[in-house]
Structure formats: C-alpha cells, structure tokens
C-alpha cells in the first residue's frame, strides 16, 4: 500500500539578472492511496506537476510538506537499499536514464549491487532472468544502450527496475517516446509483468487512451492538484470535472468522419507560478460561474463547484 498525505512541492526560482523571483507551486496538497496490485493512471498536461509527483513518490525529491508512506512506514525513514526493493522508476527516455557507457548487463545489475546482496554469479543469473522476462535475448547483455532500438532500451529500463523485485513501479511517460507499435509491445509487457509479480503501478502519462487501457483508477491533475480521482471505467465513461471532459474530448481516436473536436478551453495557458484564485481551472473553464472565481472548491474526489449538478 502506497499512500501520499498532503504532498506539496514548491520551487523558488531565482529571478536571474533581470527577472523577478518566482514561486512555483508544482504540487499542491495532494493526497492519494493506492492498494496493492492496483494501477493508478495520473494524467494531465505539461506543467501540471505529474512528474514532480512521481519524483516525490520515488523519494528522489523531498516534498515541501506532507509525506509518502509505504505500508505505513514513512518513505524518508526507509534506507536506500530497502527502498530499492520497495519502489523503482521507469522513465520516459531510456537513452537519458541508461548510462551510455555501461553494458546492458551492468545496467540491469546496478540496483542489485546497490542492494549489496547478490554475489557475482547470483547477479548474473538474475540479470539473465530479468532480460528474458522483458523479452530480450541473452545476446543483449553485452551491448551498450546506443546499440539498441528505443523499444529495446525501454525493456532494459524495465528489467533494471524489476531486478531488485520491487513491489511498486512508478512509470513516468514510459511509452511517450516510442512509436505506436512499440508502445503496444511495452504496454502488453507491463500488463504481463504486473500480473506475474503482483506489481502496484503508478502510471503517469499525457496520453489518455493509454491510461484508459492500463489503469484501474485515474487521477487527473491540473496546476498541481488532483481535480478528479476515480475508478477508470467511471472517469472515462462519465467524467465529472470540466477539465477531464475537455481532455477526453481532445483525444483523437483513429475514427474518420468525427472531425476535430472543438475544445472550449480558450487560450489562457496554465502557469504554475500564477495559480488563479478560487478554482484554479476557472480561467479556462467553459461553465465557470462567479463563485468559481473567488471560492476554491472543496477537496474531494471531484474538485468542482458544479460537479454533480449536471455541469
């Protein structure tokens, strides 16, 4: 069980030579709880704080406020070695998350080394096993990341993440840099590994169709907050927050004749250094009323004054 309670993260950006210092609230009082074996999809557009949330959940970035707990224990209090056995990341671009000067075998073995447990032979065995698990041949072990295709590199990143046998995987846009046919391979692989290892997965993506496919539940982020959180089936069938609706309407499925959706969001691009008062979505919201401009909606599953009122 992974839980986040009241997570916030503020970045203070120096003004530089001419600029004015900015305070960016990337994650704003986010709480969530994910039961073992479940997949949570986190969706939102660039700058919504989803990647910052991923880094906090991984313990790579300390929150400004709030805490992450795994099975009731505070993440910050768990030492690095043990943490590696609990939670592991898979990032978007394996080329930048894999050391280009290391052989694949050494890359996959690294978390095992960090753990300090397995001896040389045991490590080699585990590496071979993990590579096979992710659908890579043994000949890959001696190669370097630059010699592999994008899909193969992402398989290596997954093998590395799974080598210490973690229970939780945090995937940040794991298929966004891949071609669709390769994306399908990686999504199928993740589903297969999830079943085989009973993994709990936080899957962060801007691609709603992908999240709909893989997630049990969905959290929609906007300017640092989760504005709608619910069962995936329900959120996709009957979205309640106007932002979720706009996101869903924007998905271009390969169905000709439907034309291009008219997304009534206006041009007001969200800026996390200037979070609007009241409901943070109100400047782009097509159904905002006066109350939305002054009063922040209650912190609940759907953060909208109008949700549930036929909004």
């Amino acid at each position, binding site marked *: 069980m992974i839980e986040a309670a009241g997570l916030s993260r503020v970045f203070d950006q120096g003004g530089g030579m001419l600029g004015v210092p900015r305070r960016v609230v990337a994650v704003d009082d986010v709480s969530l709880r994910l039961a073992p074996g479940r997949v949570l999809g986190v969706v939102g*557009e*660039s700058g919504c704080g989803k990647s910052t949330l991923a880094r906090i959940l991984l313990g790579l970035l300390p929150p400004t406020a709030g805490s992450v707990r795994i099975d009731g224990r505070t993440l910050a209090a768990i030492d690095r070695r043990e943490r590696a056995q609990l939670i592991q990341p898979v990032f978007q671009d394996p080329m930048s998350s894999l050391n280009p000067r290391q052989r694949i075998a050494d890359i996959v073995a690294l978390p095992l080394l960090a753990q300090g447990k397995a001896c040389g032979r045991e490590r080699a065995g585990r590496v071979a096993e993990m590579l096979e698990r992710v659908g890579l041949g043994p000949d890959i072990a001696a190669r370097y990341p630059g010699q592999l*295709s*994008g*899909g193969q590199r992402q398989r290596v990143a997954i093998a590395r993440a799974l080598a210490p046998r973690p229970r939780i995987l945090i995937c940040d846009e794991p298929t966004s840099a891949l*071609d*669709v*046919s*390769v*994306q*399908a*391979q990686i*999504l*199928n692989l993740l*589903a297969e590994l999830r079943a085989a290892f009973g993994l709990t997965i936080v899957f962060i993506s*801007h691609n*709603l*169709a*992908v999240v*709909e*496919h*893989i997630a049990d539940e969905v959290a929609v982020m906007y300017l640092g907050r989760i504005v709608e959180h619910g069962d*995936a*089936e329900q959120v*996709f069938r009957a979205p309640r927050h106007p932002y979720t609706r*706009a*996101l*869903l*309407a*924007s*998905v*271009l*499925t*390969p*169905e*000709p*004749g*439907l*034309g*291009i*959706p*008219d*997304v009534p*969001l206006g*041009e007001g*691009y969200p800026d996390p250094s200037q979070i609007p008062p009241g409901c943070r979505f109100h400047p782009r919201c097509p159904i905002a009323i006066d109350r939305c401009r002054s009063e922040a909606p209650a912190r609940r599953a759907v953060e909208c004054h109008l949700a549930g009122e036929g909004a």
Partner: protein
Amino acid sequence: MNAPTTDAALRIADLNIQFGALHVVRGISLTVARGQTHGLVGESGCGKSVSALSVMGLLPRGARRTGGAIAFGGTDLARQSERQMARLRGDRIAMIFQEPMTSLNPAYTIGSQMIEVLRRHRGTGRAEAAEAAAAMLARVGVTAPDLRLGQFPHQLSGGLRQRVMIAMALLCSPELLIADEPTTALDVTVQAQILRLLADLKRDFGLAVLLITHDLGIVARVADHVSVMYAGEIVEQAPVASLFAAPSHPYTRGLLASIPVPGKVRRGGVLGSIPGMVPRIAAGFAGCAFRDRCAHAMPACAADVPVRQAASGHSYRCRLVPGWTQAA
C-alpha cells in the same frame, strides 16, 4: 499508386532518396490536391520527413535524390537550382515543423522575423509589412498581435509559438503547406485547437497541405487522402474513409490494432503489436520490406510485390488479394 487528380498542387512521382548506402525513400508517388490534406503517415525512420524535406529542397547532408519528379504547378522542383528553391520557400511553398524554435530565431523579435519574410519575398515596405504580420497573427488566433510583434519567441507558450510559426508560413499566401508533425510537441487540448486552425486555413485559403505524422488519430480526423509509409515505401494509399474502413496492407492493420481506443479496445486486453523491428534497406533490396514481421508472409514475398486495388483510389502493395481480410 497515384490517384489521378485534375487539380493537383503537388505531384510526387517515383521519388527515390539514398542516404549513403541506405535506400531511405523508394519510389514513392503521391498527389496533393488544392484545398485538400494528404496525410503521410508512418513510424520513425520510415522516410516520411526526408520525403518532405526533399520537396522543399532541404535534404540533409549525405542524403541525395536518386530519381523521381516533384511537380509543383508547372515546375519540376527536382530540377530547380538552390537559388530558385530559395525563392519558392516561404513564398509559394511553406513548411511548419514539430518544434517552432527550428524556424523561429531566438535572437529576433516575432515582428522583425515576420517583416523580413514579406520584405524578402514581396518587397513590402516596413510599415505595411508590420500591419500584414499583425493581421496574420490575429487570423491564426494570436491575441494581442501588436504586443506579440515586439516579443521574442521564448516569451510565448508552446501553443502560441506554434501559431506564430503558422502565421509566418502563411504570410505570402503559399499554395502548398508542408506540415511535419505540427502538433506532436503540444498538449492534447492545444493540439485540437491547432488542428482546427489548420483545417480552417486550408478551407479559407484553398491550401494544399501535405501533413507528415506518426499519429493515425490525427490522419483520420484531418486528412482527405492517406499514404502509409513503411521502410521507405508507400505500402497503402487511399481516401481517408476507405483506408480506415478497409485497411488492406498487413502493416496498416498492425498499426491500427496497436492503438488503444477508449471505448473500442477492451480495457486491459492485449493490444495488437507488430513483432520485430524495421529493417534497414540497402540499395538493391528486393521484395516486401515487411515480410519478416508479417504473419501472412510467403516465399514469394521475397520477390517483387504487386500493387493491388482494394477499392476505387485505394491501393496497397502486397501479394494478398483484395478481400483477404475477410478470409483471414
């Protein structure tokens, strides 16, 4: 594989491009009609972008055109000098890219870059050019256009930069717009806005648009005709409705099956995927480039592949005969 069109703005015939020993574009032919969008779709490395660059006369170093004709109006672009191409680019033919910063200079204001385009191609005076630039910015939905003219590219959001690039491309009323992944770097809500804009502009200006994309969702919603590229070849070409109603090349079918579609593909079910990887095609390659990944491959696929007609204007390059998808 070329649908006859009376009002063609661009007609590419048997275009071949080599990159050293690699044969990256192998005899592609396609037509873009006035007021229509032709979607050229395929995965990375299939040759779609280098084909577009070739039309613009902007092939990267090391790549060379080894054959084919590129008819634009009455001229064969393949036979134009660099100087002649430079006159056409940004004037009668314009191109927009995935990343607006590839065509916007970070060191100059939006205004000075747009004014320069008009001065160079049209000899317009500075004040008049500034007026035209502001009008075009307003036309593509940029708010406060006069303010934007004085701003630098980095001061704008990604969606605004994309609009500015589109405005700049349209300044000289081009007949042909080549758009290479114009919305790939944008958020989905902004993508929808930009695609709507391109559709409006196509209609209002009678533009011919060659749209390069990896996204079959965009093609389905935006294009009138589609060419599917694989390993340097067009493997299927059709009017958009026909392609999605009856995809006939195994690669097209594999691509479509690999896309999760909310409400259509069973949640958590196994997505269709294409095994293996795209081959590297050296000069002299023969047969179907997809055969090593194809579930329907037969020995004959190593020899020349016929082009078959699935429907009117709908052709595909495969040994399987029309109607095979029902039998399979």
